[in-house]
């Protein structure tokens, strides 16, 4: 099996309010034998927010990140649905407008960088399914999450707009989370909110709407028997986990549902200790979920 090695863009949130994502990603990558070379001088993608006032600035910064990965001769891996969406959007724009790309490259040339279209940019979810392979993952599972019911929560930007997110080449990308949940032995909870918006982007603009969105999805999944949700997006995690008590207040739904980062779920199945995966660093307690995972780790 070919060695897997990526230029790794950790994103802002894993370096900020979701350090458990950064830690668990590195642990799981190591356990899977995926080598990550962190891009420690790459900047925020703009998350669609800088784009509201200055799309050109965001284009240049993202092109710079792509060029940094190309300088290493490696594909780019991110751990955030929003990063994925923005990076794919910028990549699409730069590919379709060579004259614009030329101007962007003229700026990057100051530090000896150049972006050439064709870089593979993949969220950890896509890496897992397309590059690593779920059959290989299944063989490495030491603690199957059998009996645990998990709802997928994708995050908008890893799904939409589908034309720029590789729908042609990889038509099953909107089913990967379900596939991964099954691969680690858990049961998929099929609920409508899985592909909707967590509400996080408008938390400061319209708090009530934002919390209603997040609270409704959690409530729906919990009502259908979910023990946890899993997401490849730390921004979704911030609303679903950290804002869950506030969402409970606003929606009056009786909710209490642990939210896992995707690498945490994989790590549990690989037999990594829950504390090492920092499952104790969530706002919503993961204790009940851990109690359910009583199966001893196979040697």
């Amino acid at each position, binding site marked *: 099996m070919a060695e897997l090695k990526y230029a790794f863009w950790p994103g*802002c*949130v894993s*370096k*900020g*309010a*979701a*350090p*458990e994502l950064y830690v668990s990603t590195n642990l799981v990558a190591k356990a899977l034998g995926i080598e990550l070379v962190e891009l*420690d*001088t790459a*900047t*925020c993608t*703009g*998350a*669609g*927010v*800088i*784009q*509201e*006032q*200055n*799309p*050109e*600035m965001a*284009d*240049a*910064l993202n092109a*710079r990140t792509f060029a940094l990965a190309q300088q290493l001769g490696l594909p780019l891996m991110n751990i955030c649905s929003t990063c994925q969406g923005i990076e794919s959007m910028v990549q699409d724009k730069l590919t379709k407008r060579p004259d*614009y790309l030329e*101007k*962007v490259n003229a*700026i*990057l040339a*100051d*530090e000896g960088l150049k972006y050439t279209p064709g870089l593979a940019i993949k969220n950890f979810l896509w890496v897992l399914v397309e590059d690593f392979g779920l059959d290989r993952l299944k063989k490495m599972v030491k603690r199957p999450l059998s009996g645990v019911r998990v709802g997928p929560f994708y995050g*908008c930007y890893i*799904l*939409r*707009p589908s034309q720029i997110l590789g729908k042609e080449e990889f038509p099953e990308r909107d089913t990967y989370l379900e596939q991964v949940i099954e691969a680690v032995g858990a049961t998929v909870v099929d609920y409508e909110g899985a592909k*909707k*918006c967590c*509400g996080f*982007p*408008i938390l*400061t*603009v*319209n*708090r009530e*709407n*934002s919390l*209603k*969105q997040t609270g*409704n999805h959690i409530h729906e999944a919990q009502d259908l028997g979910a023990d946890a949700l899993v997401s490849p997006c730390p921004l979704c995690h911030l609303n679903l986990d*950290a*804002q869950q*008590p*506030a969402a409970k207040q606003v929606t009056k739904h009786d909710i209490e549902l642990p939210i896992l980062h995707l690498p945490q779920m994989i790590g549990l199945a690989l037999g990594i200790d829950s504390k090492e995966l920092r499952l104790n*660093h*969530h*706002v919503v307690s993961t204790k009940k979920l851990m109690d359910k995972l009583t199966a001893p780790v196979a040697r």
Partner: protein
Amino acid sequence: MKVKLKVKRAGPDGPSGYSSYEIDAAESVTLLDALIQVREYEDGTLALRCSCRSAICGSCSMRVDGRARLACRAKVIAITGGDENHELTVEPMGNMPVIKDLINDMELFWQKMRSVDPYLKPEGVEPEGEYRVPNETMLDLTHAMNCIMCGACVSDCTVLEVDKNFTAPAALAKAYRVVADPRDGHSHERLQKLSEYSGIWDCTRCNMCVEVCPKGVAPMNRILQLREMAIEEGIGGNSGVRHTNIFTKSITDGGRLNEIWMVPGSVGMFNVPRLMKEMPGALKMLRAGKLPFEQLIPPGAPGSAKMKGMDRVRNVIRKSASLKAPKPVVEE
């Protein structure tokens, strides 16, 4: 080809379950053809709305397997992938009341459309000849002008699901169509109104409308253009503008997002009642070890958190201003 349909039924008394149908049809069959065949030969009580059958009139929007589509433009085989056992779930649009079966009451849609004054309101002296508009401007407007008012975006809008006051994608895309047209004389007032509660800043940017729009209007992208215009016009004083300002400042200052300062920076530093609402959450995050202390100093202040190599990043940011396309010039 066998086509299996599971159609949601509803009458004046509300939903009454699903009816299943199975028909034989040509491989080229559209969902609309299939439904008409059902209505003509299987079940005359099935109600649906349609007219042109060519994706022009916008009458036949409905949800197929949970997603809004124009039935006349949806090839069955494209959705099922040729799997004859794939039963298509057909439902009326979301977010709007149902009159019968697949027919929605569109009043909410029209009410929102009317609320943005969806027509040009010129100001000043009329030109002697025609109004002249630069080509680039009209090209840019073609996306928004493609709207056939089918309601697909309104059906699947994730904000409208929790807040019926939201102006929603279709009307906001139409608003862009008039605001960005140089023949309109009220752009500034329009942008001011659109910047209020329930307007352009309430969109979550979830891309659902971009995904379901059958005509390439990409309403969310039009909303983003309106946001950019509002900022250019200096229309601020709302959380949306403050949010993008503090966000951009944070990246320009440190390369990565300063999350701690996003909330006070967006809702307003002195908005005490609003900030108090965030306190319990912040304390819970603190207890969980999720507050990044290195971000305690606000972006731009001495000692704020910075990525390494910021001089190179700032160089890119400064020079990116040269990438902006020049504004089209109106011919006199």
